[in-house]
Structures are given as C-alpha cells and as structure tokens.
C-alpha cells in the first residue's frame, strides 16, 4: 500500500481534531513547566490550517503540497517555539514528499526530514525534554519497521507508538532546552507538551493510514 494525498489530508484533519480535543491538556502540561500556551498555539495553528484546506479550490497534487500548506500556515500563525519548530519540520518533510503517494521508505524519509528540521532549528538532542524526545524514537522505530519490511501504514503505527512512549519518557527528564529549562530540577516529573503534541501528530498519521489501508 501507499499513502496518498487523501491520506495526507485526512492525517491533517485528524491531527486538528485531536489537537482541539486535547487543547486544555496541552495547555495544562505547558502550564506545569512552561507558559501554558502550547495547546492554544497548536489549536490556533491547526484552525488556520483547516481553514486553508477547506478554502482550496482544487485538490493538491502531492503529499508534499499538503505538508507545505501546513508548514507555511503554522509558521505564520503559531508563533512561540512550536511555530518555527513544527513549521520547519513540515517544510522539510514536504521537500522529500513531492510525490502523489508515499511508500514505507517514503514515510521514513518524511519523518527523518521532519526530525532533521527540528534539530536544525532548535539544536536539541535527545534527553533534553523536548519534542525531539518523541520524534527521535519515532524515526528510529520507522527505520526499523521499514527495514524489516513493514508497509507504510505499519511503519506509522510503530512511529506513533514510539512517539507516545517517548513523550511519556520525558516525565523524569530535567529540561535543558526551551522554556522548561528555566525551571532546572523542578522540570522533572512533568511530561513535555511538545513531545505530547508530537505523539498526537504521529498517531493521527497512523490512524489515517489505517482508515485508508482498506
């Protein structure tokens, strides 16, 4: 199977729905160790993304076109740290996805590009209690899955599960990047909001793939 533009659009809508549904949860996670706006930022961004998707006069041609629309919208609407980080992630992902559909290696390349974008902008490595701690295991899991012969949808299942585990695994970490780092030791004991939203994004991708895999 491959994942086409319809999948990409469905992924986006599912991401938006889940971000809206978990907006307060993300705010609350950010309130514990940051400034309490991560849910708000993501919701504002995805509201604009959906508005732009809805306003499209003709369907987009490639997965990359969808991802680029998301990238530019998030960059111009989200602000904060998440805006440029997710913006760059989607932009880099778009660049390697200029095709009508992605197979498993295509999905891996897309996820790798996203992570590279985040690291290029944010300069964080794993263990710093940021969204990198969700993206990085997700990419590793995707690589392993694809190498082992999994199809695109299965690759996304592994990536999403790894991101979720990664997000939970940020709880004991002491932040050394982003706003939570100002708290020092006090940042331990709380789950990173950006890692949590990353898990949301990747689970939406996987759910959309499952729905389209029929």
């Amino acid at each position: 199977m491959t994942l086409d533009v319809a999948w990409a659009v469905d992924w986006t809508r599912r991401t938006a729905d889940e971000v809206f549904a978990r907006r307060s949860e993300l705010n609350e996670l950010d309130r514990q160790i940051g400034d309490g706006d991560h849910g708000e930022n993501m919701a504002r961004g995805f509201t604009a993304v959906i508005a732009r998707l809805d306003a499209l006069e003709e369907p987009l041609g490639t997965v990359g076109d969808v991802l680029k629309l998301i990238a530019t919208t998030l960059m111009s609407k989200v602000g904060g740290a998440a805006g440029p980080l997710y913006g760059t992630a989607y932009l880099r992902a778009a660049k390697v996805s200029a095709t009508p559909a992605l197979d498993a290696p295509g999905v891996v390349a897309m996820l790798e590009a996203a992570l590279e974008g985040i690291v290029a902008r944010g300069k964080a490595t794993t263990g710093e209690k940021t969204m990198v701690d969700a993206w990085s295991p997700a990419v590793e899991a995707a690589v392993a899955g694809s190498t082992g012969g999994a199809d695109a949808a299965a690759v996304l299942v592994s990536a999403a599960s790894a991101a979720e585990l990664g997000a939970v695994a940020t709880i004991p970490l002491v932040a050394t990047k982003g706003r939570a780092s100002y708290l020092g030791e006090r940042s331990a004991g709380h789950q990173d909001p950006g890692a949590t939203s990353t898990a949301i994004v990747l689970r939406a991708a996987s759910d959309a793939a499952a729905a389209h895999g029929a």
Partner: protein
Amino acid sequence: MKKLINDPQNVVAESVEGFGWAHADIVAVSFDPDFVSRAGGAVAGKVGLVSGGGSGHEPLHAGFVGVGMLDAAVPGAVFTSPTPDQIAPAIAAANGGAGVLAIVKNYTGDVLNFETAVELAEADDIEVSTVIVNDDVAVLDSLYTAGRRGVAGTVCVEKIAGAAAERGDNLAAVTAVAEHVIANVRTMGVALAACTVPHAGQPSFDLTDDEIEIGIGIHGEPGRRRIPLAPADDITEMLLTPVADDLALAAGDDVLLFVNGMGGTPASELYIVYRQARKLLEARGVRVTRSLVGNYVTSLEMQGASVTVLRLDSELTALWDAPVNTAAMHW
C-alpha cells in the same frame, strides 16, 4: 478568572487598537499582520529599531515606540512570540534606509521567529542586525538551559540603543551600543502571585498564601525556587545580591537602579523595594545615579517585582538622559 476583556481571542487586537487610538500622535497601528510603528513612518537615514514578543508585558514593547526609542513593535499572542509574517513587515516599516536593529529577548520562540523574519527582510535587501537580550540572572547556567532570559533589562536596551540611533549612529554603532547595554544589565524577579492568561482561565502557577516564587520570568512560568513569604527587605536582598554579584559591581561604580512592577504590585511596594535595593548598593559603595520605578515589563496582573541594575558610564548615562517620546516613557 476575572478580566476586563471581551472574547479572549480578541484581547491583543482590541487592546492594540485602543492603544493606537489613544496615542495616535505617537504611533500607527497595522492589522493583518499586526504591528505598531511610529506615526509618520520610518525616519529616512536613521537606523530603525524593532522589537517584539508575546503580548501581556505591556507597556513593553508598543509603549516604547516613538522618537528616541523604537521604530516598530510586534505583539504576538499573549506570552507567545509573534510570527515571521508579522515581524518582517515591521522591519520593513522601520527601515529608513540605514538598516534595522532587531532587539530580541532570549526565548527559543522569539529567537526562532525573529531569525526567520530577518531572513525574509534580508531577502528584501534590508540590512538587519540582531541583538539578544538576556539579563535574567535567575537562569543560572546556560549550559543547562536555553540561556538567560530577556526580561526588564530590555527597556534599558531599547531606550539607550534608541537614543544612539536618534543621534545618527550607524547600524554597527547602534548594535555595539545595544550589546554594551546587554553586557552591563542584569535582573532578577520575584512573584507573590501568578497571573492568569486569558485563554487559560486559571493562574499560571499555584502558590499557597505564604509562599513566593524567587527567580521568575515574565511569562507566568514558575521560578527557580519557592520560599516562604518574607519581608520586602529580605526579598529585595535575594534579588539584588545575585544581580550585583553577576555584574561584579565595585565601589565607585555608577548604576541605573530599575525596580520593575510585574503588573499587579502597588507603586508603594515598588518604592519599598527600591529603597532597600538602593541601601544595599550604597553599602557596596555603588552610586545610584539614575533610577526608574514602575510597571515597564509586566506579566499581565502578576503580583511581584524585579530588580534591574545597569552599570553606567558617561555615554550610557547621556543616552539614557536623551529625550524620548513614547506612550510609556517620556522625557
């Protein structure tokens, strides 16, 4: 949560609109993208100054747009850095042909969004230099953090670099003055009670009735440590000492002492803090030759204050004293 607002989503737009109407002699307000610039536009031949950041810190930054200070200010959502598509047009609006200095507070979001905006502006052939304000000594070791935050000291950078631009310094010189201020200004803050972000509807952190947060930033984040409520003189000492130590203040140094209110602290309390901070400085043989006391860099209605010290030399003093005509600072 009780606030004098309408829809939380419209807080920034409505507030900026009212601000623009109230100060139409000083500023012009643009919407979509939202930014504030000087009434009358960029000054030909003068280096332009742009700053911006999340809203909720008023009067920072829009209150400092005007002759002798900023050329444009970019308000983001509350406590959220503005986006490049707001910042880039503000840079363009501030450009009088001599280039633009972007004054950015050191937060990941602000730095990243300004970075992109500067790239966009440079693509339009505007020369831009950027300084990063990082005066908050509460953030101890930048090896383990995103680096020291930019807080109240930003006002000193904007005022003094603004005066340098106004007297005709070129971009490199204005940038150097700004860097000089940044190298010599330090701040530390305390919160007695958190603030409530409009969309959140609950306080940004929870404190019991006899706890305070030492080493807070300006985004309602919790501080470095939570301690029992103490007399103002003791709290002031906890703020002033790390600031003075970090600056390695020595007897005979001249300084600006700036006590900043976080939004919900009565002026009388700020002066009580000022009094003790001044006593402590004088006990070190440091001379307070300039003073500023008031709400300049706030966190909505947070109760608390910060103490900022800027080491002065004759040039910084002269630039500080130079005329300024903005909504929130005027002499």
